[in-house]
């Protein structure tokens, strides 16, 4: 008879976006997928996913982040297994994650005054040179324009075309929608966010759970730090900052970074066209930027 070794205790930091789940009463969670640096748990409805990530993983805004790197860890579970989540703990057979503190995910803040249209247009052009599929940028433009103009039918049509469009884990269309939502959050007008957010929410089940959870976070302006920084630099008209944040964004996933940039570029085109209010516009200089 062999004795099983006790589970390893690993401290973690929780996200305020999933604090209710993590700190709430214990519940059963279904393992959706395991990777060296991430464990994805389904913790409720289709869009409710709790990522547990290692210290060297992409900083997904909803994740519980561990203090150890991927190479130092074995999850010891498979997709389809159930684990316990709640009371500030994630209990796996070989691992006890104790959520001992909270971390603050990156969030796109409202930029009170947008730069002049010419600058936004130039940024959109520059970003578009990095795209392999410019059609995604056009689709982003269409859905962003519809949201800004209160065109519910146009928003729902665009959402239907984009949500779940693409083969993989976070389909390309979802990444585009994420970027549009983040731009709208940065502009700060609640009506378009509500319109697009509702259209996306009504179709959660059309895409993967992880992607739906990231869209939910984007609806509140939350994203991985690289993307939040890029959106905010772009909305401030900070060319140098945007250039700096572009490379790490393009490096996300194999295509996700590019698709996010397509959504950003398409949205900037809309802002350039609808923000043409010369009396209120101003030109922001690249100098003096601050970290988003």
């Amino acid at each position, binding site marked *: 008879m062999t004795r099983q070794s006790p589970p390893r205790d690993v401290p973690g930091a929780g996200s305020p976006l999933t604090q209710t789940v993590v700190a709430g009463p214990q519940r059963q969670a279904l393992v959706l997928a395991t990777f060296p640096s991430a464990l994805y748990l389904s913790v409720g409805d289709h869009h409710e996913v709790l990522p547990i990530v290692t210290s060297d993983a992409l900083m997904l805004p909803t994740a519980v982040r561990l203090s150890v790197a991927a190479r130092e860890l074995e999850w010891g579970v498979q997709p*389809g297994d159930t684990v316990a989540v709640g009371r500030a703990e994630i209990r796996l057979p070989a691992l006890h994650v104790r959520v001992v503190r909270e971390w603050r995910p990156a969030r796109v803040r409202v930029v009170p005054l947008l730069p002049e249209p010419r600058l936004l247009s130039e940024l959109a052009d520059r970003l578009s040179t990095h795209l392999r599929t410019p059609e995604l940028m056009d689709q982003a433009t269409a859905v962003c324009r519809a949201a800004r103009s209160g065109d519910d039918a146009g928003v729902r049509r665009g959402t239907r075309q984009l949500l779940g469009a693409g*083969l993989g884990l976070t389909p390309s269309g979802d990444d585009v929608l994420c970027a549009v939502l983040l731009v709208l959050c940065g502009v700060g007008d609640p009506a378009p966010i509500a319109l697009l957010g509702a259209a996306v929410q009504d179709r959660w089940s059309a895409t993967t759970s992880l992607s739906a959870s990231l869209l939910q976070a984007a609806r509140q302006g939350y994203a991985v730090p690289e993307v939040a920084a890029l959106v905010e630099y772009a909305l401030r008209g900070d060319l140098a900052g945007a250039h700096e944040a572009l490379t790490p964004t393009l490096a996300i996933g194999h295509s996700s970074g590019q698709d996010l940039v397509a959504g950003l570029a398409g949205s900037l085109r809309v802002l350039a066209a609808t923000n043409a209010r010369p009396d209120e516009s101003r030109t922001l200089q690249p100098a003096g930027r601050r970290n988003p």
Partner: protein
Amino acid sequence: MTDLVEVRRGAYYDSVSLMQVSKAVRDAPGISAALVAMATDLNIDLLAGMGFTVAEAVGPNDMLVAFRGEDQTAIEAGTSALDAALAGLKAAGASAGGFGDAPPPRTLGTAAARGGANLALISVPGVNAFVEAMDAVTSGLSVVLFSDNVSVEQEIALKDAAAASDVLVMGPDCGTAVVAGVALGFANLVRAGSVGLVAASGTGAQQVMCLLDIAGVGMSHCLGVGGRDLSSAVGGRSTRQALAALAADPSTESIIVVSKPPADEVLAAIQAYAGTLGKPVHWAILGAGRPDLTAAVEAALPTSADDIPVWPQWISESQIEASIDTKAKRSNGFLRGLFCGGTLADEAMIIASERLGPIRSNIPLSPELALGPDLNSDSHAVIDFGDDRLTRGRPHPMIDPSLRLERIAVEGDDPTCAVLLLDLVLGFGSHPAPAEELAAAIAAARKAAASDGRELPVVVSLIGVENDPQGLTSCAKTLQASGASVFVSNARATRRALSLLASASAANTSA
């Protein structure tokens, strides 16, 4: 036509990976359509548009596999292609593309910790080399530091850290190492055996390993230590580490230490240390009054003096005729040595200066003999084209011989050049076909001299073994055909060149 539609749960991949998988399946023999995708609504629509029917209940977190083959054999081929492509993704860590796969290592230390390597080969600009090497050493790796322009202070700090971690720093400026049969940098494909080398000299180590191979003796490892290791400042720090490593290595039965002229006190201390190791240690140390490298190898061979091999040589026809004709006039003028190997150049100067007196050089035996920046000389001269000042912004002459080839042409036109002494180093890292270009340059120089009424003897020391990619004998014959005499021993080649000089002959007679 046969369709296969199946659901794979818990399989998460990014879009690009699934496109690659779809293409791999589509390329399988007999497959006419294929799609591998997450089962989102749009992808199910896409499948329906392709004529597939998804029979069972699926959700967007499931992965759908669908392909169409002309018969069951095609479906089996498609399934094999699918499994192979997915396995390939897993092996490459490509799953999820950033949403869960381990991020690629960003530092040498991280790569080491993840990969389980025990040796790092570092070849970055010198200004960055220290940081990388220290990262490797503190991560428990031995280091081959190919980079040059590392300061002595940094070299000492690295080697002290290595000693503390019980690893070895080979370098800086270590161009040659062979560890357990793996050639790192410039090295020859010599046979495996029981002699270990510790080398503070790149081409010197290659000369020794090649002579051992030609003598039928194999090598266990060649651990480079960097050309400055036996200087007063560095104090033989890596030589000690390397000696200790070879002493502990069961495949090594005896050791040869190869070095350019060292600091006397350092050599004495290292020799005292070597005496404590319990394995025979032989010394191939260049310097006035010391045996040349060939003699040192002969002394280290595990045979009696009578069994010392006849080192191969290929004498040119013109030099055979000259040697038969005892009245043949020796060449008036000066020795010109044009080398790629610094240690070979050093050895040639040490041997030649015993007969010729002072020899000018860009790596002179004493500072007052330094050549000017134009490298011109109206006396005996030896130039090392591998010297750092001549390789700045260009490859080493063992890779790109163009500078030396130009100089050979210049010497062919120079009536004061009496004998041309060259080296050619074969093996990994060197030019893949160096003999042809060198032979053409030799023939052209001899022709230019002949048109001026002069005979220009050329002698080449050819450092290599038969198994080298370039082939020893074929290179030797190519050079011989151009009018050069070829020796596998640099010392023999140098003495041959001296024998062709009237001034050397006179000096020898008067000595």
